[in-house]
């Protein structure tokens, strides 16, 4: 009689009681070896740089140690928002990202709708493969192509001369005219990524019930009506979620295209925050101001991204119920 409860209690002690954190950790040490080195890597390369944000509140001198730096408070931030150049850079960043956002969405959805209507599978494949191509080349190569296309003896000027819009000798130096830069950037971005951006929409379109199209056809809906009343509403949830997510990247107008296509003549329109950071920081050695600009960008992006993600999640749930 006495032995049985003792026996059960020992069983409980060994198997029923959850093992402590450290016991488990030791038992799972091979998993620890497989992940903890990368946690250390993550800490050094992703978390330690955050410490560098303190530079924005100092008059940073690279030669001095951390404790010897002079603290400057919010001086650099105040300077930024009075600096005409920074405000211009901010305007350029916002303008280009909005242009990119709208153009990117409209063209990608448009191309996806057209591709979805192609019944000849081989032709569809060929168009898709070609349209992905520019996404895979670097911006350096893309910028080189853009530059030669827009040069005085490039394709666009040749076309304009051929069609009689301009006379020979009056070639337009497209990249030398600041006002054109946003548009050219938008066009170049569309050229590079429109095909790639159709992937998600095309995937969403395959989820639409074919019965809907059949029913619409019987009711006499035309091709355009079917696109308008079935395909487009069918991918609406995807569009909305992607749109909200994109808002999180409002201050990420890109860096490479502007840097590679920018020059002395279009600088007032081509310079974005990242270029500002690079020029002030690395080239001129004004680390504090440049970190302040970078930090401003990251913090605003963080808020936007977090808000956008939450909103997207809530919208997603609303769709489920």
């Amino acid at each position, binding site marked *: 009689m006495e032995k049985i409860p003792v026996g059960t209690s020992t069983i409980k002690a060994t198997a029923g009681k959850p093992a402590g954190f450290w016991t488990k*950790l030791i038992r799972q040490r091979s998993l620890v070896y497989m992940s903890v080195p990368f946690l250390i890597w993550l800490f050094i390369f992703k978390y330690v740089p955050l410490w560098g944000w303190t530079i924005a509140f100092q008059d940073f001198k690279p030669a001095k140690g951390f404790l010897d730096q002079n603290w400057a408070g919010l001086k650099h931030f105040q300077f930024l928002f009075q600096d005409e150049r920074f405000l211009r850079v901010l305007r350029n960043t916002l303008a280009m990202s909005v242009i990119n956002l709208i153009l990117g969405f409209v063209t990608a959805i448009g191309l996806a709708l057209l591709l979805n209507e192609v019944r000849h599978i081989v032709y569809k494949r060929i168009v898709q493969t070609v349209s992905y191509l520019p996404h895979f080349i670097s911006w350096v190569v893309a910028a080189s192509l853009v530059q030669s296309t827009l040069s005085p*003896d490039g394709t666009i000027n040749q076309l304009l001369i051929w069609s009689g819009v301009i006379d020979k000798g009056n070639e337009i130096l497209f990249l030398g005219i600041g006002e054109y830069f946003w548009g050219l950037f938008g066009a170049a971005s569309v050229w590079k990524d429109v095909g790639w951006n159709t992937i998600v929409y095309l995937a969403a379109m395959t989820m639409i019930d074919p019965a809907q199209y059949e029913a619409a056809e019987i009711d006499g809906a035309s091709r355009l009506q079917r696109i308008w009343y079935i395909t487009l509403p069918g991918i609406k949830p995807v569009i909305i979620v992607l749109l909200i997510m994109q808002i999180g990247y409002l201050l990420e107008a890109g860096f*490479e295209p502007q840097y590679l296509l920018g020059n002395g003549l279009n600088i007032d329109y081509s310079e974005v925050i990242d270029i500002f950071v690079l020029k002030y920081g690395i080239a001129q050695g004004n680390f504090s101001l440049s970190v302040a600009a970078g930090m401003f960008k990251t913090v605003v992006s963080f808020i936007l991204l977090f808000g956008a993600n939450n909103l997207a999640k809530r919208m997603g749930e609303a769709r489920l119920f």
Partner: protein
Amino acid sequence: MPAATTTKKSIFRRNSSREDKIFDICNYTFLFVLMLITLYPFVNTLAVSLNQATDTIRGGITLMPRVFTLDNYAYIFREASIMHATMISVLRSVIGTLLTVFCSAMVAYTMSRQEYVLRKFVTLAFILTMYFNGGLIPNYLLIRELDMIGTFSVYIVPGLIGVFNLIIIRSFIDGLPESIIESARIDGAGEFTTFMRIILPLCVPVLATVALFTAVYQWNSWFDVFLYNSSYPKLSTLQYELQKILQNSNASMTSRTATDAFANAGNTAANTVTPVSIRATMTIVASVPIIMVYPFLQKYFVKGMMVGGVKG
């Protein structure tokens, strides 16, 4: 009633079929034009790179070279610096891709083990970095503190693991039947053996996606070369060499006389190369490996994009 509907239907059928044809013709033509616009800059640049440099100055090269020559390519590959840069580009693409794929898969595997006590912590630590980064200057100062400036490792180590890669590999592993891992356990395999022998081979499709993304990223990178290694010509890459050429022509574009002077210099000595031809040739050399590879991996990256789009 039924009779009325049939007539109505047939009327619309006839209308829609004619409409259908017009729509198809317009659509196919439009897409064809779009393909032309996408491809034309490449074809044009290829034609320029295969055309005699002095002849190119006369202008008017479109789809085909006028005076065919391989001199531009010969010139480029005679340059020791370009050959070396090509080698570094290949090295960083190969080494970077192998390391990234292996390390990402390993971390993703630990993140997929439900019983792992650090699973939530590891996942959160990685996911959080999607929302912020230290920025250019702090990263630069860190690399300088770590004495990594002027080393090859600066191309590989700082960007070793991307969160996007982790997400798509983990969601692939989560889709594998749990019984596979259990049976490996019963056979006495440890975590590392299970990972190497069971998980890695099963993950080939998703790892191919990650490998493609990484290889493209590595091959296309120039900014880290510019930022960290611009004064170490031994570590220059193809993309960075092209970027320097681009920068020069950018600078000369602001005054057209400079370009003309270049052109004249080319004219006086026959068979010499010009900046325009060099740039076209470099552009082709820097993009050809990617153009050759990506169509064959299309299946993989489209799938990867969709998984990432859904889960991310």
